[in-house]
C-alpha cells in the first residue's frame, strides 16, 4: 500500500470516529450545549482540556522552536504548562462553584454590571478569533501536506467535520471528540519520539533520553549536540543567548495568558463538583506533560539527527553529497519545507551558520560560499518518523495527530465564541425572554456562524496571523485573568473598578502592540520600530501581558477604593463561591 492511501485510511478512520461520537453525544439542552450537562468525569475532562489546549502549534511547531534556540526557548515549555497552576489554584474551583456557562457571565454577575460583561465579551471574541485563525490555517496546511489536496479544500473538509460535531453536540460533542483526539495526537507524537530516543540513547523515555549518553559517541547527548552546533558556527544549545529579563517576562506572559484563555477556562465548567475541577486541572496537566516533556527531547534529537545526516563522518569532515542524501530529504523537498542551493558548486550540502562572524574564517578555509541548506522548523516533527525509519502507518498517524490537534483546539475556541454570542449577547442583552429551545437554536446558529467566519479567515488569513498570537495571550493576561482573580479574591472590587481595570488592560495592551507592530498589524503604520532600543523599560510587545495585568489590578483597586463597596448580595455571592458546598445544584441561569 502506498503512503498516500495509508494516510487517507488513517485520517479517514479518525474522522469516522469523530462523527460517530458526534451522533452519540448530541446536545438536547442548553446546559449540555454550553457545559456538557456538567457531567464529565475529571480524568476525561483532563484529556479533553489537554486536546483543547494543545494546538497545531504545540503539536507541529513547538519542538522545532525549542530546537532552533535550545535553552532560551524553554519559555514555551514552562509558560504553557505553568499557567495551569494558576488556573487550578486561583480560578477553576471557584468558577465551577459559580456554576454558570460563560466567562463573561461570571464577570457580569460578580461585578453586577452589563458593561463589565460586554467588555469581557469583546475581549473574549478578540482573543478567540485571533487564536482560531491559526488553527484553521494549520488544519488546511496539514491536509494539503499529507492528503495532497489544495489547502483551501482541506480547510473546507476540516470545517465540515467541526461543523458536524460542534453544531450537533455543542460542548458535549466537543468534549468526547476531544478525548478521542487527545488519544490520536499523543500516540502520534510519542511513538516516533520513543524510537528516536531508543536509537540515539537506548532509553525508551524521550525526556530521560535527553539527559542520557549518546550511544554512538559515548558523550552525554546534550554535550554532543553542543559540540556539533558550535562546530558549525551556531550558538551552543544549553546556554542562554538573550536576556534573563526577557526570558522571565515572556514566560510570565505565557503563564498568565494561559490561565486567562476563555476556551480553557470553560472546560472546568463541565465537571460535576468543585473537587472534580481541582483534580481535573491536575489530570489536564498530566496529559499535557506527556507531550511537553517529550517535545524538548524531540527537538534536540531531531536537530542532532539532521546534522548527523549531513555530516556523516563528523563536523570536521566533508558533508554528504546532494546525490546521496537520504529519502526523507527527497520527500520533504517536494513540499518546499527543505531547500538546498549549491552555492559553491561542489555538489555537497554545506549546512552551517553563515551569519556568525567568528565562523567566517573557517568557512572560507573550507571553500564554503554560504549556508546551502535551510529547513522549516516544523520539519523536525513532521519528518520525525521518516528520519527514524519507522513504517508508513506511523507517518500516517502524524497526519491524523496534527489534524486532531488543530481541530480539537478550533472546536474549543468556536464554542467559547458561540456561547458568548448566544448566552451573553442574545440571551442576556438582546432577548432576555428567549425560551430554552430558542436559546439552544440560537447557540447552534451562532456556532455555525462562528465556523463560517473562522473558515473565511482561514482561507484569507490576514498577513499578521503570526503576530496575533501575542495579542491573544497579551489580552487574556491583561483583561480576563485579573478580572476573574479579583472577582474571587476580593469582595471590595466594585463594578466601576473592574470595568475600568479591564478597559485599561485592553486598551493599553492593544496600543503597546500596535505601536511596534503597526495599527491593527497593518505593516508600515507602526509609530516606533520594533527594536529593543525603543521598548518601554525594555519590555518586548510579545511579553506585555503581565504589565497589562498589573495596570488592570492597579486601576481596579484604586478606583474601587474611591467608590462605594459592592452591594451585600454580591459580597454574599463571593462568600458562596469560596466554599465548595452546594455546587451540586448548579443552575444555568
Amino acid at each position, binding site marked *: 500500500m502506498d503512503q498516500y492511501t495509508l494516510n487517507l485510511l488513517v485520517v479517514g478512520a479518525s474522522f469516522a470516529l469523530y462523527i460517530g461520537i458526534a451522533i452519540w453525544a448530541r446536545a438536547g439542552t442548553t446546559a449540555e450545549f454550553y457545559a456538557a450537562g456538567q457531567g464529565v468525569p475529571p480524568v476525561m475532562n483532563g484529556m479533553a482540556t489537554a486536546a483543547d489546549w494543545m494546538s497545531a502549534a504545540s503539536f507541529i511547531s513547538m519542538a522545532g522552536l*525549542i530546537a532552533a534556540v535550545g*535553552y532560551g526557548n*524553554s519559555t514555551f*515549555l*514552562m509558560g504553557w*504548562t*505553568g499557567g*495551569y*497552576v494558576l488556573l*487550578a*489554584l486561583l480560578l477553576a*474551583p471557584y468558577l465551577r462553584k459559580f456554576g454558570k456557562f460563560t466567562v463573561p457571565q461570571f464577570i457580569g454577575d460578580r461585578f453586577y454590571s452589563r458593561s463589565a460583561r460586554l467588555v469581557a465579551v469583546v475581549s473574549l471574541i478578540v482573543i478567540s478569533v485571533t487564536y482560531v485563525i491559526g488553527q484553521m490555517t494549520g488544519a488546511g496546511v496539514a491536509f494539503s501536506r499529507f492528503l495532497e489536496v489544495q489547502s483551501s479544500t482541506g480547510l473546507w473538509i476540516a470545517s465540515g467535520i467541526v461543523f458536524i460535531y460542534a453544531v450537533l453536540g455543542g460542548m458535549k460533542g466537543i468534549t468526547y471528540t476531544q478525548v478521542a483526539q487527545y488519544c490520536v495526537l499523543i500516540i502520534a507524537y510519542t511513538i516516533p519520539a520513543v524510537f528516536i530516543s531508543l536509537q540515539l540513547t537506548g532509553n525508551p523515555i524521550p*525526556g530521560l533520553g*535527553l*539527559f*542520557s*549518553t549518546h550511544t554512538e559517541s559515548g*558523550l*552525554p*547527548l*546534550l*554535550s*554532543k*549536540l*553542543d559540540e556539533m552546533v558550535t562546530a558549525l558556527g551556531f550558538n551552543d544549545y*544549553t546556554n*542562554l543567548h538573550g536576556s*534573563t529579563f526577557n*526570558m*522571565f517576562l515572556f*514566560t*510570565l506572559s505565557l503563564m498568565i495568558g494561559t490561565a486567562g484563555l476563555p476556551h480553557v477556562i470553560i472546560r472546568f465548567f463541565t465537571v460535576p*463538583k*468543585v*473537587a472534580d475541577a*481541582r*483534580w481535573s*486541572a*491536575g489530570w489536564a*496537566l*498530566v496529559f499535557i*506533560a506527556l507531550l*511537553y*516533556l517529550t517535545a*524538548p527531547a524531540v527537538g534536540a534529537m531531531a536537530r542532532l539527527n539532521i546534522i548527523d545526516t549531513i555530516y556523516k563522518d563528523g563536523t570536521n569532515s566533508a558533508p554528504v553529497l546532494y546525490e546521496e542524501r537520504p529519502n526523507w530529504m527527497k520527500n520533504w523537498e517536494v513540499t518546499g519545507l527543505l531547500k538546498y542551493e549549491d552555492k559553491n558548486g561542489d555538489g555537497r550540502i554545506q549546512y552551517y551558520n553563515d551569519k556568525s562572524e567568528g565562523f567566517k574564517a573557517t568557512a572560507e578555509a573550507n571553500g564554503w560560499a554560504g549556508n546551502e541548506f535551510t529547513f522549516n522548523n516544523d520539519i523536525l516533527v513532521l519528518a520525525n518518523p521518516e528520519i527514524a525509519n519507522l513504517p508508513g502507518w506511523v507517518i500516517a498517524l502524524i497526519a491524523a495527530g496534527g489534524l486532531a490537534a488543530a481541530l480539537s483546539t478550533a472546536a474549543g475556541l468556536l464554542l467559547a465564541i458561540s456561547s458568548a454570542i448566544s448566552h451573553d449577547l442574545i440571551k442576556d442583552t438582546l432577548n432576555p425572554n428567549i425560551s430554552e429551545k430558542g436559546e439552544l437554536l440560537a447557540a447552534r446558529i451562532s456556532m455555525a456562524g462562528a465556523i463560517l467566519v473562522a473558515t473565511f479567515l482561514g482561507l484569507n488569513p490576514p498577513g499578521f496571523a503570526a503576530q496575533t498570537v501575542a495579542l491573544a495571550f497579551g489580552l487574556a493576561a491583561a483583561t480576563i485573568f485579573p478580572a476573574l482573580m*479579583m472577582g474571587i*479574591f*476580593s*469582595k*471590595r*472590587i466594585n463594578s466601576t473598578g473592574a470595568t475600568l481595570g479591564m478597559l485599561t488592560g485592553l486598551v493599553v495592551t492593544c496600543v503597546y502592540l500596535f505601536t511596534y507592530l503597526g495599527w491593527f498589524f497593518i505593516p508600515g503604520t507602526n509609530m516606533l520600530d520594533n527594536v529593543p532600543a525603543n521598548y518601554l523599560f525594555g519590555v518586548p510587545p510579545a511579553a506585555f501581558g503581565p504589565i497589562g495585568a498589573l495596570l488592570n489590578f492597579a486601576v481596579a*483597586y484604586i478606583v474601587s477604593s474611591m467608590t462605594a463597596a459592592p452591594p451585600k448580595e454580591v459580597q454574599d455571592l463571593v*462568600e458562596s463561591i*469560596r*466554599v*465548595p*458546598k*452546594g*455546587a*451540586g445544584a448548579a443552575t444555568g441561569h
Partner: protein
Amino acid sequence: MADNSSSNAYWAANVRIIMISLAIWFVCSFGLGIILRPMISGISVGGTDLGFWFAQQGSIIIFIALIFFYAWRMNKLDAEHGVEE
C-alpha cells in the same frame, strides 16, 4: 489584595496553602529554571546543569505535583471545615 481578609478560617487556610504553593511554583520555574540557574550551575545533569533540567523537565513535573497536592489538601480542608459537597 488588602481587603480579602475573610474572617472565615477556611478561607484563610486556603489562601495560606495557595501562597505556599505559588512560592514553590515560582522558585522551581522562574527561580531554578531562569534566574537562579547560574547559582546551581555546579550541579551537572546529563551534559548540562540542573537549571536546564528544571527549565525543560523539572518545572513541569513539579507543577503537576503542586496541583495534585492542592486538590488533595483542599479536599481534606473541606472535610475539616464541613464545607465539602
